[in-house]
């Protein structure tokens, strides 16, 4: 048993190190190695090393503000595809926190655009007793020039906590960074630290298509037979190659048995190649899987 645990730990460590290395290399050398990184990494695989938070899945590298380090880890990915990617806190008695989170857009209420999502945040916060909106939602750019990325920011404060939420869209996820400080100046200092963020997008990322696996594109489907019945759908995300073969499966939240069963069969699914302007492209999509009587359905 101990030996198994040990091997598991080594495997996990190797995954984290590989992801971190991929992200660092991507940050240093640009996009060339990212196709490998984005295919193998999971959204939750990021971590802090030498004062830099890196996440290979999102191609994100963030040199932390001085004095910041990792706080308590967040929960596992949720049933609705929500991830707490990093909880960064001021160390040694300092103030301020930075929460990096991601919401899989395949499992969320659809938003027309980032502006609408930011507006929803603003309205939700404004309804809380004692909360004031300091800065109406506005488009900003985050990241190192010239490779900045459009984002939306909304600031709010209440009971002596000054917060800002910055949102951008990456890899079919709504990536959010929530800054919390004890005064407006400190909040601004944290916001400025986002100028050092490196967001390295793949040159040809998979096309995000909601509900893709439930349509006519699916030409071959195998149902898992050994996963446990579940009333709550199991969220999974797949990348379909330009040849229609499933290249990557990520079961977001499930038991180990469910995860293995789903991974095994989804890799056998085949799709019609998706084309844009006559060129076959990769597709990334989500599936909500329900089990029961061996039947698996996409409910998206």
């Amino acid at each position, binding site marked *: 048993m101990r030996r198994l645990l040990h091997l598991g730990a080594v495997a996990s460590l190797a995954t984290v190190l590989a992801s971190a290395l991929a992200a660092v290399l991507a940050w240093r050398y640009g996009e060339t190695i990212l196709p490998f990184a984005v295919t193998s990494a999971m959204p939750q695989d990021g971590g802090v090393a030498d004062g830099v938070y890196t996440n290979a899945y999102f191609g994100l590298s963030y040199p932390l503000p001085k004095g910041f380090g990792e*706080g*308590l*880890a*967040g*929960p*596992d990915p*949720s*049933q*609705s595809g*929500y991830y*707490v990617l990093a*909880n960064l*806190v001021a160390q040694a008695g300092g*103030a301020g*926190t930075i*929460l990096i*989170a991601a*919401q899989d857009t395949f499992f969320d*209420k659809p938003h027309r655009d980032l502006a609408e999502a930011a507006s*929803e*945040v603003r309205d*939700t*916060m404004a309804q*809380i*007793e*004692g*909360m004031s909106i300091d800065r109406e939602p506005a488009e900003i750019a985050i990241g190192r020039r010239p490779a900045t990325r459009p984002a939306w920011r909304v600031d709010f404060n*209440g*009971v*002596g*906590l000054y*917060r800002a*939420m910055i949102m951008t869209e990456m890899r079919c996820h709504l990536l*959010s960074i*929530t800054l*919390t400080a*004890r005064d407006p100046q400190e909040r601004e200092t944290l916001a400025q630290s986002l100028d050092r963020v490196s967001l390295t997008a793949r040159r040809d990322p998979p096309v995000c298509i909601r509900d893709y696996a439930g349509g006519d594109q699916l030409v071959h489907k195998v149902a898992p037979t050994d996963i446990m*019945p*579940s*009333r*709550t759908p199991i969220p999974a995300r797949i990348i379909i190659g330009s040849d229609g073969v499933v290249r990557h499966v990520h079961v977001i939240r499930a038991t180990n048995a469910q995860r293995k069963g789903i991974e095994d069969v989804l890799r056998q699914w085949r799709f019609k190649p998706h084309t844009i302007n006559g060129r076959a492209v990769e597709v990334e999509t989500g599936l909500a899987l329900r089990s029961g009587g061996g039947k698996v359905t996409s409910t998206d």
Partner: protein
Amino acid sequence: MAKRTFASACSLASMSAILVASVSLPSLAPAQGRGPTDPGVRGGAAGAGDPITGLSATERAFFEAAKDVFAETDGVPDGLGPRFNLDSCLGCHSQPASGGSAPAVNPQVAVATLLGARNTLPSFITANGPVREARFVRNPDGSPDGGVHALFVITGRSDAPGCSIAQPNFAAELSRNNVVFRIPTPTFGLGLVESTPDSALEASLAANSQQKRALGISGRFNHNGNDGTIARFGWKAQNKSLLLFSGEAYNVEIGVTNDLFPSEREGNAACQFNHTHPESPTPLESEGGASPSAGFQSDIALFAAFMRLLAPPTPASATAAVAAASPSSTTTGSTVVASAGSVLPAAAGTTSTATTSSTTSTSATVDRGRQVFANVGCAACHTRTQRSGGANVAALSNVTFEPYSDFAVHDMGDRLADGVSQGEANGREFRTAPLWGVGQRIFFLHDGRTKDLGEAIAQHASRGSEANQVIQNYNALSVDDRQAVLNFLRSL
């Protein structure tokens, strides 16, 4: 079948002890210059235990009949045991009134040796500790267990001659780190919770999803495995209905088999003294009483009806504060001081000058505490209001109520994890504990590990918890604002 008699002398003695203890709780004087201090259990009127307002005379009579059965003490001839945790519903659910949570004096200590029983008191059961049930995380072969292992046996009791069975070896299981605990959940207002449609709960959970997203919170419901609807009762929202909740507790906690759980958990024939099957069935003839319809109901139906018709706890702002205020009160202001466990709103024009402390609780600090509670994110899960749907009891229909819970389960991290899966809730997930009535609760968290509200809040943070950001926000507040939160909570 359990006899429907009023509580025994033993039960009355226990209640007397509880009442005495309730009024003599030690003063929780604040430490000046340090962090905030839990004002302690709120004194004054219980503000709980009565039927919900608006019942008809017939419904009220039914409630009273059900309340009597809830208070009954069972002996072995009634079906108690052979393995059990206590001998009445009321024994566990009595703080601050019938239907509540664990009392200050643990009745399990007395019942361990009642009528000649020879039970060894497990180390985690103490006179001043919480009423507890024990679950084992794993079976001896390492597979998941998670079930309740009753603390006591009827062996040695004068009403169980010839029965010889042993208690589980709790000391050994404790040494294996294999025992986790649960304390009784309060049952006030649960008819409203039961009457809330799934759609209303789902809408409530989704309504503040943007706030949750900024706090690292997700949450999900524990769905019933049979019909797929939302289960909502119990520490992990594992029970679908009040009837199921009652039937399971009657069998698991008291050892009385019933229509929902008809099988004895202990098969030793020498320990079976009640030969009806189940021991507490639905009567085919009325047992009489002031409520003719109640006379036809099984015990578990009456337990469920009692909980269903219990009013929600009344927060301090609406209770009769004057009666509990200090005798040195004057009539010049609007401040009441929290001391020896009283956080009370002032009656108009009343000021208590009995004590001065940093836990001074005014209506202003309670209001501030409510605001802080919402601002830092506590209310993202401890959702203030819910609304019931249509119910066959008019008083429960379409009522907006304030349970301070979303009734969803959340990952609470390593520190609170108990390793027990129930339904879709895993070993780290717990239902958002409703906070209504928390002002008069003595023990907190699922296992009753603390009596201190501040410590209960702190325990929400650990590796993997959805509450980490909220607790970070809370810890960043001034002492006054953290104190206001505690005062607000003790006002509920």
